[in-house]
């Protein structure tokens, strides 16, 4: 069974992420492990050291536990996947989640964030340690949408193989409609002629998906501005894309930053 770590805080973004994860788990038979990291600094400076500090941290963790349990209980009845009791810990959020992802052998990490008009928030996420070193793909939930259609997004310099592999591993058995896109915005001076030819990449990806028995819908090159292309992706319940260190500032990353749809990021090391 696919193991999914879901990061939760007591906020709207987490509530959306949990609902979305439940939907995903119901579709693909996943086991959800919620995790909440209480960051000491977020509730003021820790007092003293030793016993005093430990007592203070225990009280914070207990308060956090109550909020997270309430959040989970509110969703439990509608959650179709297997929802495990939450793990709670104190520390630096990213470090603790990375540690859990490495030690827990998870297949997927899910977290929520509210979509913003500017893409700065998304860029910061891509620069974070968690997104650079995550051992498994990450689903970033920015809106609660029905997962009926999935888009697989390719771009210049991004290999299609890890994306196809992850799609088949996580969702290959689910009867979803999958569309394949290659994002190559028109060059302001040279149009598209001076860039890589996307057609062979699209054909190879389609062929590899077909080999795995995945039925493909649309197959298309998107060449609009990131804003317009993001609108095209809005109708998808999940956008699967690859992100690597070199492509954190690339066209695909820019497009994903502006797309309000949930995205599944395969970290290409």
């Amino acid at each position, binding site marked *: 069974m696919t193991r999914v770590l879901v990061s939760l805080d007591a906020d709207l973004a987490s509530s959306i992420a949990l609902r979305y994860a439940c939907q995903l788990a119901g579709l693909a038979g996943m086991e959800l492990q919620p995790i909440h990291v209480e960051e000491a600094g977020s509730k003021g400076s820790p007092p003293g050291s030793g016993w005093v500090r430990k007592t203070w941290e225990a009280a914070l963790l207990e308060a956090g536990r109550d909020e997270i349990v309430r959040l989970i209980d509110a969703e439990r009845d509608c959650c179709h996947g297997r929802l495990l009791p939450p793990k709670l810990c104190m520390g630096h959020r990213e470090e603790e989640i990375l540690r859990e992802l490495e030690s827990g052998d998870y297949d997927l990490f899910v977290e929520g964030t509210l979509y913003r008009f*500017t893409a700065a928030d998304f860029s910061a996420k891509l620069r974070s340690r968690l997104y650079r070193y995550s051992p498994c793909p990450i689903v970033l939930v920015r809106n609660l949408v029905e997962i009926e259609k999935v888009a697989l997004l390719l771009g210049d310099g991004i290999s299609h193989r890890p994306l196809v592999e992850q799609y088949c591993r996580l969702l290959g058995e689910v009867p979803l409609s999958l569309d394949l896109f290659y994002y190559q915005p028109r060059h302001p001076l040279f149009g598209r002629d001076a860039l890589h030819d996307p057609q062979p990449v699209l054909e190879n990806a389609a062929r590899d998906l077909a080999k795995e028995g995945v039925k493909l819908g649309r197959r298309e090159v998107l060449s609009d501005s990131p804003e317009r292309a993001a609108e095209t992706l809005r109708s998808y319940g999940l956008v699967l894309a690859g992100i690597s260190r070199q492509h954190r500032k690339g066209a695909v990353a820019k497009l994903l930053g502006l797309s309000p749809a949930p995205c599944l990021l395969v970290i290409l090391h």
Partner: protein
Amino acid sequence: MRIVVAVDEEPYSDRAVEEASRLACNTWPDVRLLAVAPKSGTGEGEAPQPWWSRLQEQRRRFLAGFEPGSCPYPAEEDYRLEQGGKSLWEEAAARRSTPKDLRIRLRRGAPAREILAECDDMGADLLVLGCGPGQDCSWSADPALPPKVAAEAPCSVLVVKGEPRIEQMVCCLDQQRVSQASLELINQLVTLYQARLELVGITEKNTLKAEVERRMAGVMEYYAAREIRPWLELVERDTLPAFIDRQAQRGLVALWMGKESILQKIFSRAKVRQLVGVSKSPVLILR
């Protein structure tokens, strides 16, 4: 719910009446169809033509939106003319046997002032009016009227313009208090236009106030219970005008402009006028 529909003699007013009729099919409000004739020396006597016959025609248009047998308003033949004052004519049902009230009213005077007075007089929840296409969104008798009344009306205002097809409604939320009437109006419009609803939380220094976040969650649940799944978006206060400008090109923009709203500060009357002008689709100002 009480709605004033302000009309003049131009075709865009026909569309405003049709949209008001579609809205009324779902909400059954009390409705006043209002026209304003220019001032003249004599105020008494028969209602001035061609205004009066134009209003009667608009009433027929409004009632035509209802299925026979399901109309909550009096039938066409039940209305009687009354002169309510020196510069006011009204036709209402002489004896009301229907659940809801529909009347046509003609005032004399400056159109913008009379429309605002009518909203006050009725205690209207919503003013609906149309305007011409293009950037100026004008009325033939008073070009600046639609933006002016949208900015100054004491109630919510729906300016019907542009494409009748509305793909999305963008509702900006920056305060804890949002009236039930506003939520219901949005609900009705989303259903009416089969539009996508986008709820926008306004942040300051990249932070969303806890009470606004709670309110967003509440509004999301409210619509989820009505099988409407809104999209959520956060917009920094400084970038809000740019955001609204972009959205105005795509679909109906609804702004919640309560007394405590920072939208009231960011969107001065001049900005509301500008928004009504530049928007390619209807604009809804919720108050």
